[in-house]
């Protein structure tokens, strides 16, 4: 309760500051076009009226917070959650492939990290290619992946989830390789004196020691996974999901729609990161973590 209140005040204060800055930017960024517009329409409004107009354009360069808020509110709460236009529905579509991809990605990332830490051949040969794989611009190959998978008959959630997997396994691999190698030498020596098997050293020492690295990586991975899910929605015809909303907004310069989809995406991202963070803290607590 206390921690709740100690969070609420700073968050609202900073949010308020962001909103004020946002309004200022909105006026500044929308003004040139409004001036053009007025000029073309041969109007010369007063300052207050002008500012009002910059904040109520239908397709503003930067929508004002209240425009986004209204749009967000309408599309979140006023539409049935099964409607194609509901943000809740679209967020759910994205979230489901995000979660699936994140689960795959985390598992794959850990498996690769374990391989790299334990098998000299993999450490030497695989890591450079894992890195190279991440420099492939996913948006360029995603369509090909989707086309190929569709040809094999895999459609729906899985192709999108695979793109999430592709983006999210990497942070986990990098973090876990570090984490699995982070035990103190003395602890490794101790396991050595017990002639512990690799599996035992792994489960009893390397895994617990890597936990802080794992959760930090998972926070990054879950955000990457969301990006992957959104990217994956584009070449599948952008039918539903936050990515589809973003794209549809972009075709028609519906900046307010874009922004409210972005807000929805961020809310989902923040929630996911928060859930991973809380999970991390719970695990730390269960492992006898010392309060800072």
């Amino acid at each position, binding site marked *: 309760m206390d921690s709740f209140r100690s969070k609420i005040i700073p968050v609202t204060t900073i949010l308020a500051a962001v909103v004020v800055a946002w309004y200022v930017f909105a006026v500044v960024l929308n003004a040139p076009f409004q001036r053009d517009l007025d000029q073309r329409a041969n109007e010369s409004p007063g300052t207050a009226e002008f500012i009002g107009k910059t904040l109520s354009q239908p397709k503003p360069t930067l929508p004002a917070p209240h425009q986004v808020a209204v749009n967000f509110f309408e599309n979140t709460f006023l539409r049935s959650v099964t409607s194609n236009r509901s943000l809740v529905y679209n967020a759910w579509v994205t979230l489901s492939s995000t979660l699936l991809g994140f689960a795959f990605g985390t598992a794959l990332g850990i498996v690769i990290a374990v391989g790299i830490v334990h098998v000299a051949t993999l450490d030497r040969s695989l890591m450079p290619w894992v890195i190279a794989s991440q420099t492939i611009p996913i948006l360029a190959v995603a369509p090909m992946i989707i086309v190929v998978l569709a040809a094999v008959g895999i459609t729906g959630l899985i192709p999108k989830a695979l793109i999430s997997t592709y983006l999210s396994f990497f942070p986990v691999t990098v973090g876990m390789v570090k984490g699995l190698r982070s035990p*103190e030498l*003395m*602890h490794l*020596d*101790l*396991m*050595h*004196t*017990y*002639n*512990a*098997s690799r599996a*035992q050293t792994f489960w*009893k*020492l390397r895994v*617990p020691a890597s*936990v802080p690295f794992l959760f930090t990586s998972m926070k990054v991975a879950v955000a990457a996974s969301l990006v992957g899910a959104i990217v994956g929605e584009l070449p599948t015809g952008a039918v539903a999901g936050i990515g589809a909303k973003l794209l549809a907004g972009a075709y028609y310069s519906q900046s307010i729609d874009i922004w409210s989809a972005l807000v929805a995406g961020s809310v989902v991202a923040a929630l996911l990161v928060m859930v991973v963070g809380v999970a991390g803290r719970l695990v730390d607590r269960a*492992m*006898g*973590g*010392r309060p800072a």
Partner: protein
Amino acid sequence: MTGQSPAVVSASKLGLTFQTNDGPVQALSNVDLTIGKGEFVSFIGPSGCGKTTLLRVIADLEKPTSGAISVNGMTPEQAREKRAYGYVFQAAALFPWRTIERNVALPLEIIGLSKAEQAERIKRTLELVNLAGFEKKYPWQLSGGMQQRASIARALAFDADLLLMDEPFGALDEIVRDHLNEQLLELWERTNKTICFVTHSIPEAVYLSTRIVVMSPRPGRVSDVIESTLPRKRPLDIRETPEFLAIAARVRDGLRAGHSYDD
């Protein structure tokens, strides 16, 4: 030296050189040593002379760069794989994410003891080091000495025939130390374990050992080996006997000879 009993540790011309950023450091040089079954050998010598390194070589945690060593007639590696020894490190090396009792359970889990037997050994060894009541605490909730005792309990629970102990009692007060010395002697006598024991305390070395190896530094060499003439059964007050004091004096001399504070 103790040719009659089979050698548990036997080293000849053992040398070890570390490569560091500013040149090689010779930690051990030309060490010859044979330790028979059931012996209690103490290593004593100035700080940095190579005692830990020698123990680590026996334990297959460091590879010697010259000379030969065998443990139980095998290479240290084979001996380690046979779980021939228990090791108490100079620092406690407890896992921070395990409670004390689970730290002690660690080696037992690894050798695959049943839960019941684990519980029994944990209880027994924690009582031995007087940590009953602290089973559920995490290491950072214990004092330095308590952590060290937990790590001793962990090694004792492992119950190997050869015990390698690196200053196990350094962080303990005299009373606890006396108590644990007695317990260790009693254990040694009862189980006929072989014990290699690093210490800085001359009385402790003399009280416990059948043989005392005095080392001198840079490079670490064995400068003296002193056979104890004390009986195996040793009450605490043996430490006031002239025989005891004579041996202690000899150790002190050996120590001082190899020392650099001669000024």
